[in-house]
């Protein structure tokens, strides 16, 4: 049924432009300045959607964000956007929209069968049917799959988003949200006072309600006043005007989240689709206006039932008549201007006012324009199939039968207005109910946030403009600027008070839709109330009222009014729910901005990155770092490569990039004392020229990190940390020095990025280094195990220590980062000549497992020194961080899980990290321990592993347990052995 049409003249559209667009494949045309909804109505299309639960036909009901019905999917493929609001979507050439939530089509929708079962689908249906008593915890898991397929609003694309999004970080003195009369005047006054102002408007035109206002403001025609304001704004250098920009969230510190959409006409010149603005404002003024509320009657969801203000907007702003015979039902003064405009446009208008008396000017208005005015009446029901055809009206007091049936094609309704306070509510500011205005008015914020205009309950545009000026002047004064002082007008402004909505007693509550988007009916609310869900927060969760994408913008107050009627309590007593960000849906792309794919996190590259890549390394992302994983030769797999690298290292020599280790210069007279306090073992007594392996505990006695510290002089140490904990250890040491031990004269400098580090390990390590590093005696006596020495490479000083992670004769050599690549190339060439190679992370990890050294998987934030078999490292001659709490009895228990070595009982079998250690036949439950690290050992010829088991070696050495791995379908019998698989005496180390 087509009822809407474009009027021959008027409206803020460019009739010379011709935009082609499509809806569900139908080719249509519209004009620049149209919204998708106005263009659809102009083409006679009102029925655009099926409802969420019952698949009832739904039409366009609003002209802005209050729209609850007209959700469509825009675009196709990777760019398809579900749940776009047709009423706020700016029309552009080539736009393609689809109806959603219907199958196979809008007109033939199989889901509409749900209407037949509507009595089964009431509030709490899912809880009662699928989760109720006797159904067991798993039944929901079973049903959910089927329910999800039938439910849901729209479908997101599964393809990667091809569009670009940006983030704007900015500051201002005053952020004004909304550009109606209040917002415009606030912006003008604030800018004139010298404030730096941002004015954000959701719409693609400035003006708010003025865009559809045929009346006057400040004694000027509204359109003329608006034009001069907009002209003045564009000339002000103090104001940044953001159109198409929705403020969706207010956060601590008067920080606002805004999302700006691209002008669709500029799609080829603006690279981003949306921009996320993070605005740090000194003050915020909310001028977001008010939203009209629908009325509750049977069939109030039928296409053709629209908000009165929306009908006015389509008529005046877009020159579209949504129908020819309009029944306008109201409880307040606001609909009279629309009634007049409709009548002047030549439409047939019947005005049903629930009030018994109205003011003289309103009477005159009706008489002068030939409106059929009926007082004391209200709409009881609508009839029609896919569009409203008639309405039944009866006495507004709810008593008495239906009086008459009127033919019509549009029912325009006004149940009063709700100030848009979602943003203030996000800040935890509770509104207060004003019974005479039938509206929640804003509460006072403790933060510098004000509400102006109809967002503060002011109904007259003159009052709105004045409140904008007055509040902006006060804001300017608070920021130390001067502005003319004005009185703030009082809320309200209608000549005859609004009449509260009351339901007639004989109505079918199941056909009265309170939340149109979630299909919550008056019957659902009655049921919830009967079952004890009286508080609005409970009502919301039980019925899902207000939980759809529109956050119940038009349903919250009608629902509360209904609840108040049912529970016989005032709306004020019941109170309202808290709104949370975002005020309107925000695309994930906008929030992510440029931080996606490879830009999600920075990539850290070692100074040797390029040169190890030249050596053929396959790189691996570990945390932020790119590290060489293995160096395949002749198409080796990772397993083949790392085992060969291990063999070559153990038989000849291997070199490894260890530049990613955290490196901290610890300097000052108290450096030794400081290290003594943070490490469990002693560093004070260690002489300059020596290094030591150290372990740090957290305060609670759990191991935090390990590494070596090299004493360069009496007052200077070079500390290394694990790669993963480098930042954490640095911050921790800074914390201790600044907040706990300010008396210690120690300075810390992170030098991680300043040094390139190479580990050289294997029987030929000495020869390899001696061939490349000058001015240094590598003889065992001159450069013993754990000694620190300086050398020279190509005239560049370098620093070496004889330390070993692999158990081989090994050194770490550090050189200024920019000289690292040259050193690497030289060492790599010599290594080749000696039968050695470069080895990567995989071999590094495997070598240390063979030696029984603990690494990241063992230092998991739960293990103590004793658990790791390092108990004897703890000094008894000094106190250190964690020393006291590590002595807690439960941490000293013998039956704690302790580090052990694991070997398969059948030599050829493998097992994996993450497996649970359990006695055979007792795999259920938590088991006795777990496997942390495994590798194939080329030295031993079978798999080996490290793990933890309750009671450790003392209890389990030589015994067999099961490494149970049911998820990966592998369980292996393993023998518990000492964790040192290779050279436990350390003869290789000291060679």
């Amino acid at each position: 049924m087509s009822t809407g049409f474009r009027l021959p003249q008027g409206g803020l559209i460019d009739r010379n432009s011709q935009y082609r667009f499509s809806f569900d494949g139908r080719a249509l045309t519209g004009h620049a300045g149209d919204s998708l909804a106005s263009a659809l109505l102009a083409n006679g299309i009102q029925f655009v959607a099926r409802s969420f639960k019952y698949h009832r036909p739904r039409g366009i009901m609003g002209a802005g964000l209050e729209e609850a019905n007209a959700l469509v999917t825009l675009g196709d493929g990777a760019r398809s956007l579900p749940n776009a609001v047709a009423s706020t979507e700016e029309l552009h050439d080539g736009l393609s929209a689809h109806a959603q939530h219907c199958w196979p089509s809008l007109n033939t929708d199989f889901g509409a069968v749900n209407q037949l079962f509507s009595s089964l689908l009431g509030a709490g249906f899912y809880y009662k049917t699928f989760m109720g008593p006797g159904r067991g915890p798993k039944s929901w898991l079973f049903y959910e799959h089927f329910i999800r397929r039938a439910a849901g609003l729209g479908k997101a694309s599964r393809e990667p988003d091809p569009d670009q999004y940006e983030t704007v970080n900015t500051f201002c003195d005053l952020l004004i949200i909304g550009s109606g009369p209040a917002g415009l005047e606030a912006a003008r006054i604030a800018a004139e006072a010298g404030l730096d102002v941002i004015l954000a408007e959701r719409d693609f035109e400035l003006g708010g309600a003025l865009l559809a206002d045929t009346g006057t403001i400040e004694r000027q025609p509204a359109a003329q006043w608006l034009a001069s304001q907009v002209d003045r704004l564009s000339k002000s250098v103090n104001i940044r005007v953001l159109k198409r920009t929705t403020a969706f969230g207010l956060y601590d510190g008067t920080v606002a989240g805004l999302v700006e959409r691209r002008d669709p006409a500029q799609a080829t010149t603006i690279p981003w689709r949306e921009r996320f603005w993070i605005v740090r404002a000194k003050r915020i003024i909310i001028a977001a206006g008010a939203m009209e509320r629908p009325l509750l009657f049977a069939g109030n969801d039928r296409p053709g039932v629209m908000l009165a203000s929306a009908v006015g907007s389509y008529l005046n702003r877009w020159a579209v008549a949504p129908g020819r015979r309009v029944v306008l039902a109201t409880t307040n003064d606001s609909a009279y201007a629309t009634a007049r405009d409709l009548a002047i446009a030549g439409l047939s208008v019947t005005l049903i006012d629930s009030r018994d008396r109205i003011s003289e000017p309103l009477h005159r208005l009706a008489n002068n324009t030939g409106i059929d005015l009926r007082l004391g009446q209200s709409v009881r029901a609508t009839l029609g199939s896919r569009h409203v055809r008639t309405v039944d009206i009866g006495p507004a007091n709810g008593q008495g039968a239906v009086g008459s049936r009127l033919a019509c094609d549009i029912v325009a309704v006004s149940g009063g207005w709700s100030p848009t306070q979602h943003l203030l509510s996000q800040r935890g500011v509770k509104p207060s109910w004003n019974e005479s205005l039938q509206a929640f008015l804003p509460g006072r914020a403790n933060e510098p946030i004000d509400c102006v205009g109809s967002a503060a309950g002011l109904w007259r545009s003159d009052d709105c403009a004045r409140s904008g000026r007055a509040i902006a002047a006060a804001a300017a004064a608070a920021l130390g600027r001067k502005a003319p002082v004005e009185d703030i007008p009082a809320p309200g402004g209608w000549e005859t008070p609004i009449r509260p909505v009351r339901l007639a007693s004989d109505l079918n509550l199941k056909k009265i839709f309170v939340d149109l988007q979630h299909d919550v009916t008056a019957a659902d609310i009655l049921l919830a109330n009967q079952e004890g869900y009286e508080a609005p927060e409970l009502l919301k969760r039980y019925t899902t009222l207000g939980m759809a994408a529109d956050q119940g913008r038009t349903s919250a107050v009608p629902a509360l009014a209904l609840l108040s009627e049912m529970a016989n309590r005032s709306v004020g007593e019941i109170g309202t729910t808290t709104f949370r960000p975002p005020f309107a849906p925000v695309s994930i792309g906008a929030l992510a901005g440029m931080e996606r794919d490879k830009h999600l996190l920075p990539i850290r590259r070692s100074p040797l990155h390029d040169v190890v890549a030249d050596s053929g390394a396959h790189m691996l992302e570990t945390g932020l770092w790119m590290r060489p994983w293995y160096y395949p030769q002749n198409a080796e797999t990772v397993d083949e490569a790392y085992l060969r690298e291990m063999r070559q290292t153990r038989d000849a020599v291997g070199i490894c990039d260890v530049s990613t280790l955290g490196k901290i210069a610890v300097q000052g007279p108290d450096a030794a004392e400081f290290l003594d306090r943070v490490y469990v073992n002693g560093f004070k007594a260690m002489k300059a020229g020596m290094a030591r392996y150290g372990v740090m505990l957290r305060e609670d006695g759990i191991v935090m990190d390990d590494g070596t510290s090299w004493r360069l002089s009496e007052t200077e140490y070079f500390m290394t940390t694990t790669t993963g904990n480098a930042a954490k250890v640095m911050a921790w040491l800074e914390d201790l020095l600044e907040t706990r031990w300010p008396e210690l004269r120690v300075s810390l400098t992170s030098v991680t990025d300043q040094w390139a580090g190479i580990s050289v390990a294997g029987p030929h390590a000495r020869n390899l280094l001696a061939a490349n590093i000058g001015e240094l005696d590598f003889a065992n006596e001159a450069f013993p195990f754990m000694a620190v020495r300086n050398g020279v490479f190509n005239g560049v000083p370098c620093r070496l220590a004889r330390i070993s992670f692999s158990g081989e004769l090994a050194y770490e050599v550090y050189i200024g980062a920019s000289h690292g690549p040259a050193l690497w190339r030289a060492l790599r060439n010599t290594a080749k000549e000696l039968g050695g190679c470069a080895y990567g992370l995989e071999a590094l990890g495997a070598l240390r497992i063979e030696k029984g050294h603990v690494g990241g998987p063992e230092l998991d934030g739960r293990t103590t020194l004793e658990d790791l078999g390092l108990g004897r490292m703890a000094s008894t001659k000094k106190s250190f961080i964690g020393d006291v709490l590590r002595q807690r009895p439960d941490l000293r228990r013998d039956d704690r899980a302790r580090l052990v070595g694991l070997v398969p009982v059948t030599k050829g079998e493998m097992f994996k990290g993450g497996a649970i250690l359990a006695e055979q036949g007792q795999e259920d439950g938590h088991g006795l321990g777990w496997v942390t690290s495994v590798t194939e050992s080329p030295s031993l010829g079978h798999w080996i592993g490290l793990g933890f088991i309750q009671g450790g070696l003392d209890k389990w050495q030589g015994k067999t347990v099961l490494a149970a791995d049911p998820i990966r379908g592998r369980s292996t019998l393993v023998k518990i052995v000492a964790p040192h698989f290779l050279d436990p005496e350390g003869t290789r180390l000291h060679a």
Partner: protein
Amino acid sequence: MLRIKCPFCGERDHSEFSYGGDANITYPDLAAPMEAWIEAVYRRANPKGPHRERWQHIDGCRLWLIVERDTLTHEIASVTLAKAALAPLVDGQSS
């Protein structure tokens, strides 16, 4: 988003800072009795209202700061350097 006025760098987003715990705790000597350490490490007041906290300006000057913050309103009453001896760094600037 909280905005924290670092005495050294100026007012910045809280995302540049890292929370470091309750500033009212006096940590005992390293060799103090266990009860004192349990008190310091595990027992927290969780006050509603003004609270002194340690924050590090970790992505800025890296200084440790004492922030007086209202846990209810998130209002920040003052920000000072944790290590008083570093005050000359910020002399002449308001905190």
